């Protein structure tokens, strides 16, 4: 077999696989990278150049005036106006005398701009404007520059959104909603899962079937009656109808079917001998559960906890319905949604806010990916 053949048989497909996966990985990463880079850019640069040019600096057009006739000096036979157009930080790459052509002449060369005038603008913004006869008029000449601004990265956008745009407050709200709404369902579901796995009582099989059925019931079915119920309870007891307790219970209940299903499957698979020998030793079900089942079920509990955490943190619908949309009640997803409405074009604010929103889930994801995968494999019957 010659080399060409061997490349065709193995090399090319292998290379193709590498290339294909590389393209896919880049495609999948690019959108997130876009907002990360943009959120760190100077807000004026975001609006004039794509984020993919962030590291090469951005070209902008600027209008400036040269010095007027009063600043002219005689230089040999001619007259010259000299000076600087700005103080550092930028580089002129080209200039022109008409706004349509801000890049007509390259920087650094003296060019004839008509009327017997020559103009030289250097990269650092200093210029020499020459004419054989004296300059007249009390206004300086209008010149258009193509200016390269060096890449400017800043944390200002984050400072703005955390303080002024209420993202800091929303972050705390999200934590307040998410942590109890993750822990409480685990506790409740674990007890129920143990009962369904290891305790004998009539109706157990039906209950399991009901739980499995409820996993896919769409949230939308629950919203109207629950909203009515919350409002009635609020009115009856004279308390606000939109409270943290209310949303914890809602999240707990909506996560319950999947939690029970996942945990029951795991707990039912624990070795029978351990639990029966504990029973023979006189341990009550409560003790068996706390001392044996809970510690052994840690992987399943962790899997569900990650699920529930991501689900609650990322939820928008339940938060909008049960916590309300007033500014100080917004969780991160709600705040981001509100900003999309009020700050539609301000990408420095949107990108920074979005990145803060996804920061915690991404951290959880990368730190605990193993448990997340395990949970997915065990419970891929729920639709979110």
């Amino acid at each position, binding site marked *: 077999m010659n080399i060409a053949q061997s490349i065709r048989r193995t090399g090319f497909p292998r290379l193709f696989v590498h290339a294909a996966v590389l393209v896919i990985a880049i495609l999948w990463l690019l959108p997130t990278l876009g907002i990360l880079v943009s959120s760190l850019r100077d807000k004026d640069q975001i609006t004039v150049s794509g984020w993919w040019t962030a590291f090469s600096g951005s070209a902008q057009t600027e209008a400036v005036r040269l010095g007027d006739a009063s600043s002219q000096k005689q230089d040999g036979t001619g007259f010259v106006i000299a000076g600087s157009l700005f103080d550092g930080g930028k580089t002129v790459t080209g200039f022109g005398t008409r706004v349509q052509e801000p890049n007509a002449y390259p920087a650094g060369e003296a060019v004839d701009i008509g009327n017997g005038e020559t103009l030289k603008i250097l990269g650092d913004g200093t210029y020499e404007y020459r004419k054989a006869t004296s300059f007249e008029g009390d206004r300086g000449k209008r010149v258009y520059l193509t200016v390269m601004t060096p890449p400017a990265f800043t944390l200002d956008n984050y400072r703005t959104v955390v303080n002024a745009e209420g993202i800091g407050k929303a972050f705390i709200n999200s934590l307040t909603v998410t942590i109890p709404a993750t822990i409480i369902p685990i506790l409740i579901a674990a007890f129920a899962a143990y009962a369904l796995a290891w305790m004998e009582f009539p109706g157990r099989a039906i209950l399991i079937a009901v739980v499995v*059925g409820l996993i896919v019931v769409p949230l939308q079915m629950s919203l109207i009656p629950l909203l009515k119920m919350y409002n009635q309870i609020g009115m009856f007891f004279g308390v606000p109808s939109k409270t943290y307790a209310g949303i914890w219970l809602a999240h707990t209940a909506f996560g319950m079917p999947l939690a029970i299903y996942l945990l029951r499957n795991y707990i039912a698979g624990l070795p029978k001998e351990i639990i029966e020998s504990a029973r023979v030793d006189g341990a009550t079900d409560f003790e068996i559960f706390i001392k044996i089942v809970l510690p052994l079920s840690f992987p399943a509990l962790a899997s569900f906890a990650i699920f529930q955490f991501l689900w609650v*943190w990322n939820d928008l619908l339940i938060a909008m319905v049960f916590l309300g949309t007033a500014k100080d009640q917004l969780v991160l997803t709600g705040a981001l949604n509100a900003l999309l409405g009020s700050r539609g074009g301000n990408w420095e604010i949107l990108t920074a806010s979005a990145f803060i929103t996804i920061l915690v889930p991404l951290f959880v994801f990368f730190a605990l990916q193993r448990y997340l995968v395990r949970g997915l494999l065990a419970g891929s019957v729920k*639709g979110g």
Partner: protein
Amino acid sequence: MAGQIVSAVGIMIAGVFACAAYYWLSDRLLNMALPVRGRDIVTASRNLNRRSVIRPWLFLGPALLLLAIYLVYPVIATLILSFYDRAGTTFVGLDNYRWALFDREFRQSIFNNVLWLAVVPAACTFLGLVIAVLTDRIWWGNIAKSIVFMPMAISFVGASVIWKFIYEYRGTGTQIGLLNAVVTFFGGDPQVWIALPFWNNFALMVILIWIQTGFAMVILSAALRGIPEETIEAAVIDGANGWQIFWKIMVPQIWGTIAVVWTTITILVLKVFDIVLTMTNGQWDTMVLANLMFDWMFRGGGDSGRAAVIALVIMAAVTPIMVWNIRQANRENGGH
């Protein structure tokens, strides 16, 4: 802000503590009410029996209560509300259903939902399968998998911002949206992608596909690893090429998993809400059922009858999957 953190932590601890206290106290109470120690043998064994009859319900109690209040009761209540007027007080028979039948927006939503159902589950499953197969073949496959899987952690709202930035359109000047920059680079005209009727649906679908492909990939990758090596080796010996091995040997062995992935994403698609709300809020013909329902819950003070009908349509669509799941679970528990 410090005040809120302190009170939030306080409430959190109280909530979790109250929950744990219930289980501990109820167990204690049960043991005290039905004592065993120091009783004659008949009473003791009778109490022990009663305890084991009652205890499962103490363990199950909070879970069942929550399920009943938040899921079972609302399903029935929504069904009933669909026959009542906007305030839920006057019986109107089938009026709400008749309205839905002839409402333009409702039809539009059904059409869009069907479009989503036709595209998203298929695209996610297909891409997930392809990526799973490809990444299993190279040494840095796990890194690539992590990257594809990562959007799973991102909220729909966050993903919408991310993609809205990609679809960003500028009337004049440099296009700062990636898509329009690419289009203009190749000499095309920039478009307002999310306001382009019909095609904008696909712009929104891409977001969900971007998020969910990782899920399909993870599940299918695990299934592919479960395929016995011998079947593939036998095919190689028989002279099958890569394409044949994939379609004729691997795919048929993971049909069950493909079905699970497909149905799971189908359920998710039926409930898609956040993406449409944040990207277009149903404008430019992108309305879907979940958003239309949310709209009617609050539109003009809310119309619970119409909203209920829309919710029921979503429910009806997931019911076959629900029945299938229950059957499947019953079969697994058949040995019990």
